[in-house]
């Protein structure tokens, strides 16, 4: 496997379908290759056809359901499970990239132990388990500690049971995105140390207090769906969304209004709003809310105005809007987790409570299991380690050496006799361990997870393990046997049996009387069991009044640094995946790097240009990173995303960017978390680097590509048009004599257009993209990369503008000059499949042409790489293979073994010198057409989903036949908001965009 591989091996990856040629046909050569049949036909595999398995995504705490597409025994694509109530068939970019976790070339391939020389050496599993057992015996069961990430399910139960059997109480959970502030606030205001679920679909007014609910907060995919359902324009109305944060995050892109208070004071705004709601008797406050009147009395809009810097009128208006209908206020985002974040969250709880939202849009009862443990617990573990109380430490699913450098965890490890890591990677924590017992990837595991109370999601192995790894549950059970504590529940041979035992109990609890085997198989097939838990009745706790004592203030001195979780890599767990590294950040569009966001005013003050390396110094550490100038951030704030700056972990993560966590205060806050705000000094180093940004322009220059309108314009008199609003901003008026020529040219082109489009009985495939729904999350970009075998090209090539991603999210700034509010416009841009495509006539070899069903086709084997098509494309959506990305001998090799196992066998892998671009997932179109033909029927509307559409959490993309007037895409395309990007070039695109709608005036 490791001896390099040819392009042909990519495609026909396995066994029965074989791969290879005797160089008899086509243009590629090669030695005789083999067809290797199965010994016994697998029941559930048909060579050449996909087999799907339901499982659960474990990349973050959301617990989305998965449908994994496998071909010939290998997972090649993940999609959302439509049965799962969490994600309803959708996935985020991180979830899409889970295959790169499975096939990551840097995975630990076998158990290893540290030798006397400090190197790791492979050992057998039997040896490994014997080592662990002897360490436990030697140290004593009560000196065993177990650190995990967020677990909720059978594995969690097993660890607790196992530790109890050993006589240990050393269970610690640490989740870097742990929502400690929100849990603390829920406890203080309602007496509940839990995280409720939020019903964003039901809310017509959403106000977020620094909560990145479309990026990382709780379950972003569910949030995106609910939010766009409740907020986006439909049938003449829409919701309203106000975002309150010093920084305009990706989540705030769709905000109708962005309010940037003085950092750390947003809670005062929430309290003042609550005061107005209660004082004016708005909303449907529960009876006991009156108890707060006295507490809230000092928080008048005027007082809050002086604290937050927001005008009193604004606060009053917001409060009235908030109470006027179904609404929700959100708090607890990690990016706004300052030292008083628990008070902010408490204030927001009070605001929700007095407006009557608790029980309606905020539901305690169906609680989310989005976090477990706390930073405080980790900090206590460090103290115990330093005190010599920890003899054997097991680490699973957590990497505190990287994510909490200020905690002193890495140094404290020296005081632990035996450190055992279950990490799948040699990450910063595993590197300090004595034994590494690599766990299966989640896609290779039997397991379960309870994303929220009443939702039981199952994981099943979708393929055989890639490496000699072993599931931690099985290892733990073996160790229990070796040290002689395998009693009661632990007396099972495998973790799968343990899991099934728990599911038998679950079946009894659910009063399901069918045979267990039926229940189990049906649950596996569905991906889990979903029950509804009604919202509990909640009342105010006595401690709710404690909020009165809060002092709302920002860190003093210098600039306030905000360390916010990356929307794609979260706390850094996704950093060793080339797809995510190359995925342009939704805000900065930067790839393969960290950056420091600062406002144009700050940059001017400090004489910093984009790409200048700046140095940030806090009391706790320092870092250097290039500057990114962003009009969506306050002048007194700088921001750096988390997730980069790994010193270990793997080839894609190591040495990329800087770890912002080193700047943060390591001491736990009063709410048991870590403050993500810290005062920093910003200075220029004099060095400069060209940011590897995947965007050419930050502004539209009057070209009107990403258009927007307002709700008032759509429902009011006269139907204002966003196109005019931006067209003409810089457009030069056309002289009369030129206009005449243009008109005639247009007429001629129209004739061609009809030829090109093959009007008639064929379908014309097209997309409709609703910009009032697109959140910018970029899940579509990664989904496309996965589906279409798109290589990653690396930082240097991206900086040269040679990225290969077929779909990109263009992000434009509107306004935002001299302190006026900035608006963000988004535009998912892929090949427009023009009916009159400029690329087609310039190809000298007919490699690009128009298919009868309206696709702008690119035939790789015809392409000779003149690049004329790309030069003539007004949308810049054609990508050229400058290097031989699939060739292991090429320095730009993109799929080191076993990453290439993921390649989609239905799509040709392109080689050097070939142009490529979006195909509308033609392999899916042809696949559906073939299937329909076999079944003797027509292709149904909705049967074909492009990869981008299928994963889009906001359901912004619709694909289908434009010639069918009843198709969803036709109907959307005829929406009054529909327009074509650069449509005046007469390209007759197959992609229709629906203008973004802003609800600028309170409705």
């Amino acid at each position, binding site marked *: 496997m490791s001896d390099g591989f040819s*392009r*042909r091996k*990519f*495609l*026909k990856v396995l*066994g*029965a*379908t*074989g791969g*290879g*040629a*005797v160089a*008899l*046909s*086509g*243009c*590629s050569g090669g030695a*005789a*290759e*083999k*067809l*290797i*049949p*199965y*010994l*016994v*036909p697998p029941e559930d595999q*048909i*060579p*050449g*056809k996909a087999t799907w398995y339901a499982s659960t995504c474990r990349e973050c705490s959301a617990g989305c359901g998965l449908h994994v597409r496998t071909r010939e025994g290998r997972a090649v694509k993940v999609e959302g499970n439509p049965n799962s109530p969490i994600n309803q068939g959708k996935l985020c970019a991180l979830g899409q990239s889970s295959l790169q976790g499975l096939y990551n070339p840097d995975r630990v391939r076998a158990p290893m132990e540290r030798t006397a020389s400090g190197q790791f050496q492979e050992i057998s599993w039997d040896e490994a388990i014997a080592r662990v057992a002897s360490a436990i015996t030697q140290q004593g069961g009560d000196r065993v500690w177990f650190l995990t990430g967020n677990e909720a399910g059978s594995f969690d139960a097993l660890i607790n049971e196992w530790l109890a059997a050993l006589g240990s109480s050393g269970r610690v959970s640490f989740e870097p995105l742990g929502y400690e502030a929100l849990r603390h606030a829920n406890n203080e205001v309602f007496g509940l140390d839990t995280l409720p679920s939020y019903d964003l679909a039901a809310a017509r007014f959403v106000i977020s207090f620094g909560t990145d609910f479309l990026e990382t907060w709780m379950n972003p995919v569910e949030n995106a769906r609910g939010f766009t359902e409740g907020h986006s324009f439909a049938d003449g109305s829409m919701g309203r969304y106000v975002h309150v944060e010093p920084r305009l995050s990706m989540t705030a892109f769709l905000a109708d209004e962005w309010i940037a208070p003085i950092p750390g004071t947003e809670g005062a705004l929430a309290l003042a709003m609550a005061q107005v709601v209660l004082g004016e008797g708005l909303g449907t406050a529960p009876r006991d809310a009156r108890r707060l009147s006295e507490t809230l009395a000092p928080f008048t809009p005027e007082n809050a105005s002086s604290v937050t810097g927001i005008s009193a009128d604004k606060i009053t208006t917001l409060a009235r809007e908030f109470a006027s209908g179904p609404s929700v206020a959100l708090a607890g985002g990690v990016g706004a987790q300052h030292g008083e974040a628990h008070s902010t969250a408490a204030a927001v709880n009070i605001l929700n409570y007095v407006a009557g939202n608790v029980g309606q849009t905020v539901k305690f009862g169906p609680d989310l299991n989005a976090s477990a443990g706390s930073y405080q617990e980790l900090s206590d573990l460090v103290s115990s380690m330093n005190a010599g109380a920890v003899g054997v430490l097991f680490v699973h699913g957590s990497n505190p050496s990287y994510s909490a450098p200020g905690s002193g965890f890495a140094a404290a490890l020296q005081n632990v006799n035996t450190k055992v890591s279950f990490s799948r990677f040699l990450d910063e924590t595993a590197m300090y361990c004595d034994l590494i017992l690599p766990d299966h990837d989640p896609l290779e595991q039997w397991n379960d997870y309870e994303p929220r109370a009443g939702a039981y999601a199952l994981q099943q192995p979708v393929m055989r393990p890639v490496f000699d790894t072993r599931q931690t549950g099985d290892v733990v059970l073996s160790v229990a046997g070796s040290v002689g504590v395998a009693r009661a529940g632990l007396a099972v041979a495998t973790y799968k049996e343990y899991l099934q035992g728990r599911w038998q109990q679950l079946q009894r609890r659910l009063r399901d009387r069918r045979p267990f085997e039926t229940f189990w198989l049906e649950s596996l097939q569905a991906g889990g069991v979903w029950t509804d838990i009604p919202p509990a009745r909640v009342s105010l706790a006595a401690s709710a009044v404690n909020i009165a004592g809060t002092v709302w203030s920002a860190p003093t001195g210098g600039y306030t640094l905000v360390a916010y979780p990356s929307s794609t890599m979260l706390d850094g767990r996704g950093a060793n995946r080339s797809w995510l590294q190359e995925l342009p950040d939704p805000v900065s569009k930067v790839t393969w790097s960290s950056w420091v966001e600062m406002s144009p005013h700050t940059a001017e003050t400090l004489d910093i240009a984009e790409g200048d390396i700046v140095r940030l110094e806090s009391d706790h550490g320092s870092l250097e990173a290039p500057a990114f100038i962003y009009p969506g951030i306050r002048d007194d704030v700088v921001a750096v995303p988390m997730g980069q700056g790994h010193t270990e972990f793997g080839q894609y993560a190591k040495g990329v960017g800087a770890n912002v966590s080193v700047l943060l205060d390591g001491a736990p806050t009063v709410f048991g978390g870590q403050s993500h705000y810290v005062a920093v000094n910003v200075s220029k180093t004099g060095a400069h680097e060209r940011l590897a940004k995947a965007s050419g322009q930050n502004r539209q220059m009057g070209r009107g590509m990403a258009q927007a309108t307002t709700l008032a314009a759509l429902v009011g008199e006269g139907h204002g048009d966003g196109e005019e609003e931006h067209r003409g901003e810089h457009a030069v008026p056309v002289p009369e004599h030129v206009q005449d020529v243009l008109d005639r040219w247009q007429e001629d082109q129209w004739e061609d257009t009809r030829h090109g489009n093959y009007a008639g009985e064929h379908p014309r495939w097209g997309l409709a993209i609703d910009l009032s729904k697109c959140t910018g999350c970029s899940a579509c970009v990664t989904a496309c990369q996965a589906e279409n075998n798109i290589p990653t090209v690396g930082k240097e090539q991206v900086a040269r503008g040679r990225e290969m991603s077929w779909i990109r999210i263009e992000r434009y700034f509107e306004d935002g000059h001299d302190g006026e509010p900035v608006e963000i416009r988004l535009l998912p841009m892929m090949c427009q499949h023009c009916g009159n495509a400029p690329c087609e006539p310039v190809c000298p070899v007919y490699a690009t*042409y128009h*298919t*009868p069903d309206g*696709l702008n*086709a690119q*035939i*790789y*084997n*015809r392409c000779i790489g003149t690049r004329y098509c790309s030069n003539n494309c007004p949308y810049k959506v054609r990508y050229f293979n400058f290097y031989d990305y699939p060739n292991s001998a090429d320095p730009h090799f993109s799929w080191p073994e076993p990453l290439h196992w993921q390649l989609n066998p*239905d*799509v*040709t*892998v392109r080689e050097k010198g070939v142009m490529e671009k979006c*195909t509308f997932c*033609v*392999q899916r179109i*042809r696949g559906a057409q*073939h299937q329909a*033909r*076999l079944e003797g029927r027509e292709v149904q509307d909705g049967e074909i989903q492009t990869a981008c559409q299928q994963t889009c959490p906001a359901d912004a993309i619709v694909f289908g036949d434009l010639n069918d007037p009843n198709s969803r895409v036709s109907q959307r395309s005829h929406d009054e908001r529909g327009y074509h990007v650069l449509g005046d070039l007469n390209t007759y695109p197959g992609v229709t965009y629906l203008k973004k709608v802003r609800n600028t005036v309170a409705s």
Partner: protein
Amino acid sequence: MGRRAILGACLTAATILAVGVVALNPGNTLGQEATQAGPFVAPADVDTNALRGPRQPIFYRHDIHAGQYEMDCRYCHYTAEVSSEPGIPTISTCMGCHSIIGSGNPEVQKLRDASSEGRSIEWIRVHDLPDHTHFPHMIHVNAEVTCQECHGEVQEMVQVFQFAPLKMGWCLDCHIERGVTTDCTACHY
């Protein structure tokens, strides 16, 4: 033809083999039109050096299985009707008959050895299209294109060789003749 029919064909073949009688069934099975009128008898002695096509790890004879005993192609190439890939018989498919019959034949012994050792047979691929070409077997089989049109009279081949050029022009000739799609993206994507 459904699964039952395929099984029927197999049973017929097995029964006939067991009693050592040459197949007399004159009926052509779908997807495998024999060209000559009378019963086909595979030659007993062949000069293996003179044969076309790559030499396989086991001297498996299509002419005996598909020709003389008239086994349906799809008994072994079991997914040709439903998948792009025709399917290569698993060892257990071979052993379905050869655990009983063929004792004493050194080539059958190779198969039995592989089966008992849990080893697969690495056949040399004869028909291959370049990777930028997608050929859906199921569409062609269901359009009643016989296997022989592309693969030749395999049921008479002592050793399988590539019969057709498999060049694009050759594909297109047939597509044009039948009036079916000649769009590039029918095969290239």
